[in-house]
Structure formats: C-alpha cells, structure tokens
C-alpha cells in the first residue's frame, strides 16, 4: 500500500513536470546552432529573468540583433560568421562566473565578454586577464581599469562613472551659468547601495570641495529598491537644487515616481546612463515629463542602421527575444556595444589576417588600438549611436570622454544637450592612484606603454 502511494505521488509529479516542460517548449525559438571552429564565438552574459530583466532584455536583444545583421547582410565579418552564445546570469555574480567558465572554450574560444554587471565585471577581471580574453565593459565596471598600464584586458570606454559624474556637474553648471554658479549649491545624490552606486562618491567629494557645493547621500538598499517614500521625504526637507541619481532596475522608476509625488521640478532631476531607460519614466505618466538622464548614444530608431536591421533581421523574423525592444535606450546601448565589437574584430582581422577567426589576445590588440572616427561611424550608418572613440595603451576609457543629456517629453527621450566633456584632469589622478594601489596589493608590475 505504501509503495503504491509513493508510486502515485512520483508519477503525478513526473506528469506535472512533463506538462510544464511541454508548455514551456511552446516558446521554442530559433537560436544560433552549436559553435563550430570557423565561427567567431561571442558569448553574451544576459539577464532576461529576475529583478533586473527590464533592462537586461533590451541590452541582450540589441547586442544579439546587430550580430545577426552582420551575419545576414554581410555574411559575417570578411566571411567569418559570428555566433552569439547566450548564458543567463540573472545578474548574480556566482552564476556570471559559472557562465564565463562554461562559455569561454566554446568553439574556437571566446572573443570578448561584456558582463553588463559591475559585480560580474569585478569577479572576471583577473580571470579574464589570466585567460587573455578582453572584457569590454562599456561605461560600467571598475573605473580604475581605465588605467591600461595595470588592466591590459579591461576596457571601459567611452567613459567611466567618475567622468560621467564630472560631466553631469559640468552640465548643471552650464545650466546655471558657469562653474562659479556651483558655489553654494546643494545637491541630493540618490544611489543604489551597491559598489556600483558608490563609485562616483570620491569624485563628487573632490568636486564639492573644489567648486564649493554641498551634497547629501541617499543610499537605496538593493533589497528594498521600491520603497523610497522616506528617502524622498528627507529630500523634500533638504530642498536640493538638483537630484543626481545612480540607479538601476526597479529603483529608477520608483525614484522618478516619488520625485514626481513630492512635486520636485523634474528638469532638475538627472539620472546617470543606467537610469536613462524608458522603464524609468514610462510608469510615471505625466509626472515624469522633464526628467533628464545622461547617455553616450542617442535614443529612438532614427538611425540609418535601423533600415538595414528592419530589412535583414526584423522582417525575416530573426530578431532576438520577443522582438519588441527596438529603439529603446538600452536596446541602442546593446547595439552600441556590438557595433564597437564588430569594428574591433574587423581591425583585428585586418592586422592578423582577413577571414580568420581571431583570438582573445588579438581582440585585445584591436581594442587597444581602436580609433573610431566620425567618418567611419557615418559610413556604418550609426552616427549618434556610437561616439567617436580613440583608445590607447595607457588610456582604456577613450581620449575624449563626454556625455549627452536626454530629456523625457512624455512619449520619448529627446536630446537636449551637445556633448558635455568630462573633467579628466580631475579624475585621472584619482584613477591612477586607485589603479596603483590595486597593483601594489596584487603584485602587478606596470606594463610598458611607450
């Protein structure tokens, strides 16, 4: 009797499992075939599930779609097809490390990694350097990795968090009529209580002293990103001249909603480029109109490359995911990352042999010698999507870090500024000191960059 009961439980459970599996396979979609040796393998660490999925899906889709475009329109790069291998991290560092180990030997080996997470980037820096696979963390990750002498395999152009902070302050100064206007101003800095959110604080401290403004910090714990009532009550009491935000995921939309509910003037609320997605403002309705955010590429789908994407990817039904992310800010950022990567692979092929699969080491050379001019960007049809960038051996954040400011008008973001340059003379010494401290602790010698 007991045996029988157990059996039936087992059988029912199995039935349930199979039913679930069958239901889920309804979502079966095409994905690139398993890697073969002649393909350029590009692993993509994605988070299409979990609390950060609203941003993660856009990023992953944009990244994948551009490679699909290259394969479909050009037949790959000089005939070498690109195989994007996705691995779900859920934004968890330990799963990210597992994904890295799982994908790095796929086919002929991984070309580069874009982890889309500061935590995973930190965990992979030493591993990837050891394996000679570059990390392309565009605008996130370890700021001091911009010092190429100590971080040969890590690239964070077109700009770092520190430079972004200085550029936002410069933008505020421009709005108020010059650097002198900053003197005596009071800001609120609301940030995710996470290494990512705390990155710009040292720079803000230095600037506060130099320009004579004050600012109050409002950390938002990741576990309660959607509970910011008390924080905004404090902000209302503080009456800051501007609010600056370093947010991500559900924190962004919550903060925008709360700011609207205390009737804070939204054009004085500036988010960084991870608070620049549509997800931050869409839920806010009319209250969110006027919200500003930094970016290093344009929003929307008004770019020449979108015509090709439509013809070769969307209309053929090859779009990644549900195919509903086009033109979103973070989708464009995924595109941006892929465009730069494709150009670097092209450069590497030109240098090491056209039509060949390049290695991580060769990719590192290409990224380090990257020089994307406005003319080349124009030829690709991506003007405004990718800023002109030049990388050198010492400088892995690009030579002219600058940001754009976009503003939400209720239905879409529009650009309201020209390129606002960062204050690199201010950030570079802090950055180099931090990199040197890291190197001393790790016992790393500076690379000869001359």
């Amino acid at each position, binding site marked *: 009797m007991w045996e029988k009961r157990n059996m039936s439980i087992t059988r029912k459970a199995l039935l349930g*499992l199979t039913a679930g599996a069958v239901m889920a396979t309804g979502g*079966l979609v095409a994905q690139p075939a398993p890697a073969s040796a002649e393909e350029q393998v590009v692993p993509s660490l994605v988070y*299409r599930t979990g609390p950060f999925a609203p941003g993660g899906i856009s990023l992953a889709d944009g990244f994948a779609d551009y490679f699909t475009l290259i394969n479909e329109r050009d037949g790959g790069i000089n005939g070498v097809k690109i195989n994007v291998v996705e691995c*779900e991290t859920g934004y968890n560092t330990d799963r990210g490390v597992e994904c890295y180990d*799982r994908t790095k030997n796929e086919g002929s080996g991984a070309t580069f990694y874009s982890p889309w997470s500061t935590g995973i980037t930190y*965990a992979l820096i030493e*591993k990837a350097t050891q394996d000679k696979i570059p990390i392309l963390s565009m605008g996130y990750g*370890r700021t001091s990795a911009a010092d190429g002498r100590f971080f040969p395999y890590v690239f964070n152009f077109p700009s770092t968090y520190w430079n972004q902070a200085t550029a936002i302050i410069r933008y505020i100064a421009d709005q108020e009529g010059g650097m002198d206007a900053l003197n005596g101003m009071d800001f609120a800095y609301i940030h995710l209580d996470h*290494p990512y959110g705390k990155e710009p604080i040292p720079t803000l401290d230095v600037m506060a002293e130099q320009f004579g403004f004050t600012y109050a910090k409002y950390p938002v714990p990741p576990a309660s990103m959607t509970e910011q009532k008390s924080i905004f009550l404090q902000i209302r009491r503080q009456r800051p001249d501007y609010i600056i935000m370093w947010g991500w995921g559900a924190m962004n939309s919550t903060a925008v909603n709360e700011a609207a509910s205390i009737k804070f003037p939204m054009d004085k609320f500036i988010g960084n480029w991870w608070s620049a997605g549509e997800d931050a403002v869409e839920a806010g309705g009319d209250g969110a109109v006027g919200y500003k955010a930094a970016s290093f590429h344009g929003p929307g789908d008004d770019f020449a490359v979108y015509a090709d994407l439509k013809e070769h990817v969307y209309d053929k039904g090859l779009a990644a995911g549900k195919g509903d992310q086009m033109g979103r800010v973070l989708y464009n950022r995924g595109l941006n990352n892929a465009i730069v990567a494709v150009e670097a692979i092209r450069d590497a092929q030109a240098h090491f042999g056209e039509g060949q699969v390049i290695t991580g080491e060769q990719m590192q050379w290409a990224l380090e010698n990257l020089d994307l001019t406005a003319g080349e960007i124009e030829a690709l049809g991506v003007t405004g999507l990718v800023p002109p960038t030049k990388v050198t051996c010492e400088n892995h954040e690009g030579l002219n870090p600058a940001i754009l400011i976009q503003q939400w008008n209720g239905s879409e973001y529009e650009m309201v500024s020209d390129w606002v340059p960062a204050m690199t003379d201010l950030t570079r010494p802090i950055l180099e000191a931090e990199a040197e401290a890291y190197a001393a602790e790790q016992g790393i010698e500076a690379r000869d960059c001359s």
Partner: protein
Amino acid sequence: MFYREAGQFKTSYAADQQLLPIPMDRVFVIAVVLIAIFVVPVVGSQYWLESILLPVLILSIAALGLNILTGYCGQLSLGTGGFMAAGAYMSYKIATNMPEFMPVWVPILGGGLFAASIGVIFGLPSLRIKGFYLAVATLAAQFFLLWLFQKVPWFVNYSISGVPSAPPETILGFYVTGASASPEAKYLFVLAFVIVLALLARNMVRSRIGRSWMAIRDMDIAAELIGIKPLQTKLTAFAISSFYCGVAGALWSFCYINTVEPTAFDIERSFQVLFMIIVGGLGSVLGSFFGAAFIFLLPILLNNVPGWFGLQLATDVVSHLEFMVFGAAIIFFLIVEPHGLARLWQIAKEKLRLWPFPH
C-alpha cells in the same frame, strides 16, 4: 546483500567507538576521499573543478556550519550570509596586512575566528528568544554586518571602489588563491579545508558537546535539568557555526569569485544555505553535502540540459524552465522525504541490505 550492519562484532571500546564502525562505510568513505584527492583533479576539466566542485565544496562548509547551529542545536539562523561576509572581509584584511612569511591558511582561519566572535555576540539573544523570533534576531546580523563592511572603509584597506580583489597567495610555491591559481591547486586547497572541517564536525556531534547541543535542541528545559548549561552550549554552537561560515565566506572570496564583494553574501545566500540543510537533511553531516550539491548544482544542470540534447531554446525559456523544474523538484523531495536527502541515502542503504531479494 551488498550492505550489512549485522555480524559486526567489536572486541574493544576503541573499535566500537570509531568514527565509522561499519567496515563497508569506512571503506566507502575513505575511497571517496581518496578519489576526491587523487583522481578528480586529474580527470576533472577546468569547468568542472572551478565552476562546479569548488563552489559546491565551499557551500558545503557553510551548510555544515549552519547545520551545527540549526540542525544539531535547534537555533534557527538567517545570518549565514553576514557571517560569511565577516570571514571574507576579515581574511582579506589579514591577508593584505600580514607579514610575507605567514601561510595563506592563517588569514582564512583568522576570518573564521572573527566570524566566530561576531557569532557569539549575535548568539546572546538566543538565551531569551527562540524559534522564529531568533531567526528575526539573526536577520539583524545579516543586515548589520553587510552594512558595516560597506560603511567602514578600513575593512577594504580604504579602496575607493569598495570591492577589493582577493590577494594571490601561495603554498609551497603554488598559487592557491586569486585568478592566477590553477584550478587543481584551488580545488585541493578547498578540499583540505572541507575534509578537516567535516571530520571535526562529525567528531563534535558525537562527543559531549554535540550531545549537549542535541539535548538543547530536543528540549532545552530538560537539558538544563540534567546539568547542561544553556548559555555555554548555545554560544559554542553559535561560535563554531559562525567559524565554519566565516571560513566558507573567506574561501568563496579568495578561491571562487576572486573579489570581496558584499552582494555575494546578501540575504539570498542565507536563504540558499538554509534551504541546503533543509533539503539535505537537518542534523546530518552528510546531508550538508547533499544539500549543497542539490541547491547549487541542480539549477546549473537544468540550465545545461537543453544544450546537451541539442535543443535550441531561447535563453529566457531555459531559465524559466530551470525555475519551474527546480521548484517542483524541491517540493517533490520534501513530499517524498521530509527528512532530507540524507534520509534517502539511509533508506537506500537499508534497501541494499536485502537487494536483490527483498523477501
């Protein structure tokens, strides 16, 4: 047929009291340990050693620690992540400031001892509050400790980013921590900790101290009446448990993710370790290993399965499948065996006694 407890005659106290009195068990365990030491590093690929075995072994240590506290002493704790963080941050602090000649296990054990002392402090309320209320009190440890390590820059040597990298350290000239260490060296380094700590745990739980823990767990008033001091007993459980968690946290940072990162030890980690001992088996050393393997590996396995069969599924579909099957598997195991995987193992041994002729 294959496994027999009967007919084992002991002629000395020593033989009767040994760790594994049944020769079959003994041979089996020794064989497993020998294989783990000599065969696995040779045949295991880098992915298996570094991404599968390493984290499972480290989490087994954490699960062992929590099992001592919750499974043996009956004190529910949600502070595991915080104690792991204490071990990780303190090990980092010691490792970067200790003189050159000190071996790498010193900071790891130092981190464990620091975690133990913090565990004692947060264990003090256990004298007055019990059950779920104690769980809430230990939750305070979780949040307070993570806040502390992020707030006080002293712990990270005033690093601006707040996420320092684990320093590379050597034993006998081989790197065992940091990214430049070979997977084999890291694996053996962690395995050494696992073997020593598991042996210790196994011996502790069958000695006076372990028996007093279990007496407290089963009925604290009765235990007090027969002369067991609740204060010392509970606090030793907290100290030893936190020591294990601290060592696990230090190894996690030094050997697995290579950075000392607060998010690696958040509340999710505490729950993960708690689920490990519930699924693996409360009050079982073996169960800690089963639980760690089940909770950590099953999701990764499920994530890999479609690829092995050549199924071209979208990434998010695979992940959603993973969540569904994983959840169903937990419920399934809790229904068929509420006492955990360790109990299933015991049942399997009982079945083997008669197999293949059940009657």
